[in-house]
């Protein structure tokens, strides 16, 4: 069969097709009803502003070289090279009062399998107040001992699993296991991507604590082919003995996305590590106080941060694509800024929540 000669017509056709299939919807300002159709939406004024912003940026940074604009360092590994931008931020670390936390846990008899609310009341009436008391109980003896041993082993992942199996994953007890980690164990992660799944991650934002400071490493792709190197560099931050991942909505987005990209390139997927998803703790904590629990809203309400010149996260792909197409680095500026602020706010929020529940001054 004779094939039609391929022409750039086909690429253009697909390009148009893709443009028509946006991952988000633009909704008339104030149309709250419209927002219920999808959780991926941008208000039209926001959309309009972002486009004006984009035009300004491409004009402002026309001809400016990537390296001039982003003075980071080159990182090379078996995946190739990528560029890391590093910034430092002061942060007041909260120390968890581990003793208080233990006490709280020990008085929660429902952590013992088989004890629900009804049984709990009966046991309390009979004088069983702590899990330690239950060691003498004929029926719950074995289970109670198991819980105590788990606590005394002090393996946070195990304790997290034990609590998670009896309570919601957003329970403050789960958050409290953070007290078993050193500050240096935490890896705060936020990624920027070209879309919702099966497309490249174009910016990896990783926050770690070094010398009581928050250090943010951002691996920004100059082109898509730097993704493997950036992936490997990001995984490098999990090299400590018992790292813990901290994200905002990472359980449904960042973490599986990262896994997906690793499989895509045929790399070993990250081992299972304890994961604190701050979104879940926030929702539980501020359930009735704020209508929105997105990171932007929380940082405004709780941390008093107001972003300037921020772009809606949904529009990051458009901005990055403009960079890829034109080579003009301007559109990358707000992406990098947006991501850095996300990582910083994430760390702040995490310590804020931790301080509220188990902090010691």
């Amino acid at each position, binding site marked *: *069969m*004779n*094939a*039609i*000669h*391929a*022409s*750039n*017509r*086909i*690429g*253009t*056709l*697909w*390009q*148009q*097709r*893709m*443009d*028509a*299939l*946006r*991952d988000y919807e633009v909704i008339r300002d104030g149309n709250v009803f419209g927002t219920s159709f999808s959780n991926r939406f941008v208000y039209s004024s926001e959309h309009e502003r972002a486009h004006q912003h984009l035009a300004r940026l491409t004009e402002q940074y026309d001809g400016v070289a990537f390296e001039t604009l982003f003075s980071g360092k080159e990182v090379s590994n078996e995946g*190739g090279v990528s560029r890391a931008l590093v910034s430092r931020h002061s942060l007041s670390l909260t120390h968890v009062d581990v003793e208080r936390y233990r006490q709280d846990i020990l008085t929660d008899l429902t952590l013992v399998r088989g004890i629900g609310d009804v049984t709990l009341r009966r046991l309390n009436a009979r004088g069983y107040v702590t899990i330690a008391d239950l060691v003498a109980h004929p029926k719950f003896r074995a289970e109670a001992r198991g819980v105590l041993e788990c606590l005394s082993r002090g393996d946070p992942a195990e304790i997290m699993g034990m609590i998670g199996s009896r309570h919601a994953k957003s329970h403050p007890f789960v958050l409290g296991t953070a007290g078993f980690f050193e500050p240096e164990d935490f890896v705060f992660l936020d990624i920027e991507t*070209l*879309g*919702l*799944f*099966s*497309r*490249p991650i174009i910016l990896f934002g990783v926050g770690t604590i070094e010398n009581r400071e928050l250090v943010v490493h951002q691996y920004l792709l100059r*082109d*898509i*082919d730097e*993704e*493997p190197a950036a992936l490997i560099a990001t995984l490098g931050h999990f090299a400590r003995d018992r790292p813990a991942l901290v994200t905002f909505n990472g359980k449904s987005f960042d973490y599986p996305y990262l*896994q*997906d990209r690793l*499989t*895509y*390139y*045929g790399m070993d*997927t990250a081992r299972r590590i304890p994961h604190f998803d701050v979104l879940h703790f926030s929702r539980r904590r501020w359930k009735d106080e704020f209508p929105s629990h997105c990171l932007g809203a929380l940082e405004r309400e709780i941390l008093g941060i107001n972003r300037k010149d921020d772009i809606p996260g949904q529009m990051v*792909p*458009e901005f990055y*694509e403009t960079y*890829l*197409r034109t080579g003009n680095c301007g559109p990358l500026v707000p992406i990098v800024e947006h991501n850095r602020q996300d990582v910083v706010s994430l760390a702040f929020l995490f310590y804020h929540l931790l301080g509220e529940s188990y902090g010691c001054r």
Partner: protein
Amino acid sequence: MAVADVVRLLGVNPVYRKRVVHIETIEPEPPRYGTLAAPLPETIEAYLKESGIRLYTHQCDAINGIRDGRNVIITTPTASGKTLAFNIPVFEAMETDPEARALYLYPTKALANDQFATLEQMAKFTGIAAKPAIYDGDTPQSKRAAIREHARIVISNPYELHQVLSWHAKWSPFFSHLRYVVIDEAHRYRGVFGSHIALLIRRLLRLCRYYGSNPQFILSTATLKNPEEFALRLVGRQFDVIDGDGSPHGRKHFVLYNPFFNGIGERSTHEETKDLLISCVKGDLQTICFVGSRKMAELVTVWAREDARRSSALLADSISAYRAGYLPEERRMIERELKEGVIKGVVATNALELGIDIGSLDAVIISGYPGTMQSTRQQAGRAGRKGGDSLAVLVAHANPLDQYFMHHPARFFSRSHEHAVLDTENPYIVSGHMLCAAAELPLKEEVDREVFGSTFSPLLLDLASSNLIRNTSRGWVYSGRSRATDAVRLDGMSGESFRILCHGKLLETMDRAQAYREAHKGAIMLHQGETYVVNEMDLETHTVRVTKTDVDYYTQPLKEVNLAVKKTLEHRTVNGMACSYGDVEVTEQYTGYKIKRKDTVIGIEPLSLPPLVFRTKAFWFILPQPVEQRVRDACLDLAGGLHGAEHAIIAMMPLHVMCDRRDIGGLASPAYGENTEPTIFVYDGYEGGIGLAESAYEHLPELFSSAYELVDACSCEEGCPACIHSPKCGNDNVPLDKLATVMILKGLCKTENKGESIGSAVYPDTEISVHPAY
């Protein structure tokens, strides 16, 4: 009364006698049993024994082939036990290899459900841990992980698979141990849809290779003319064809019945259908009647019941409709009552020819040729149980193909099966699946060139230049902004869809071509029996706003078609006439619409819509000079003759190539191009072409003869829907000249000399819908 009595009635009753054009009697066939090369495991042997099954020859051939590790395509008729033929070896593998997995693909959910029930029952009886499960759009999120993890036979459909492949990491245990891929009803995957499925299978195989498995394929289809070639194109591998049917058949009477025997048609086809149904049911024959639409299924049922009520209420209650849209429980009840004999007559839509679990009946009435011989045989195959006599009746509609068969019964019964056409090289379809594949695993030129064929390398560069993929040291990585699988639609509709909204509520979606045709501003639109008027069409946001209305007029779009030959790929001479095949660019422009009440035009409104341009494949030919001269000498209308010939040729296309006449477009011009020659073009109505014009080009002499026979045998005087009228001609079937058409078509069938000619106007035939092929 028995089948023979009803057949006698058809020959004696004065109303029926005139309409019965032909009765073909097919003699009974005893069963032929086969032997297996090696015995089956005891569990399966016991299952067969318990079910009272002895394997027929074709079942044994299939099982032997599959056990030998060969890919097989089974093409025996309906109800010959194809399912068992592949379930046996799959179950055997499940027992011997505890890791083995199988994927079953079904085109409809109803079929998937039936197969699931069969597999569960078989697993239960044999105790083999096949763990069948359905994984499709209806599978709840909460069950998905467990199915991916534990199910060993996963039953799904192509649409779901298209999505699943992007999540291959989650399916890695399944893909790693995939032993069999069963594709049932595979003949459905032809044309544009088939081309998409072929590439979907290429993507599946590419992932299997990555996970280290190499599954064997089992295809089950209705009878095709080219099963081996079809399987090779669909899967890209060599297949053994299993076609020798060993199952028994009783005597079958096949009746051709023409309500339009006198060229008029005193009563509607549906009334005639209803009468036949009543006669069969009164004759105590359990009967299924296939009609074209849901609405007709309901109407024929209502009429039949009314009619039957005159003789007995019991009889009236024994007639029921059966169509899509019924709840599964309702359908199961009808099926049960049929088996118990409570229901005597069912009226079903064609679309359900496959999905009905009713076994076999005494009689089948097919209202209107279902489009392919393969469907006809599948429907007729419903009649005939346990080797008893059976009856099948084809009730002709007024359209050309139906009437052609009524006038040429011998052609009908000697008809071979259709060619199933699909094209794995269509660059529009290939490029879409390359994007999907690049999002699944990076594309590697050396390896993936073999997967995607000769267009792969040039397409790579094309996609890269549009920034849809980027070259990296690990291969080409997908970098498009939207999900590739969302942009690529398997049903051939473009990902670009227009949403039809009524007060903010989504009624339906359409592709661009359909929206231009049916939902332009001012159009009167039908949706599920309700009438709507289009208030606004927003091209920017792809939104059409409509409101409900109640008017007594309708609208019909006016379209101009232009066609430019881009590249002539082949030339041949047929009956002394120059014929060509190649690439063309078709430009369609909707210029306005007519407002009509009945057949009267009460207004014409202009439209300004951008033109639709698409590239496709066409064949074309120039009318020989002597033929043209003869038409002019007879003072006939050359333009009307060419237009009529084009309609007749398109009407006969489905006779030679497996397609619907709506898949094809045409253009007739008495003065085309620089040389102003009388030319007829016939093209595929899909971006890139799908092999229809190409296949027809190989059969031009037969195509011309059948078109001539059609028009010549039609008893009308000036052309009618049975010959040269086209149901959706954009020119309102003007101009048409039947005598000139006959003269031209006769000329195409004879050897003549070619000469020069002159002329002036272009008459597009706009009956097709254009679906860009991505």
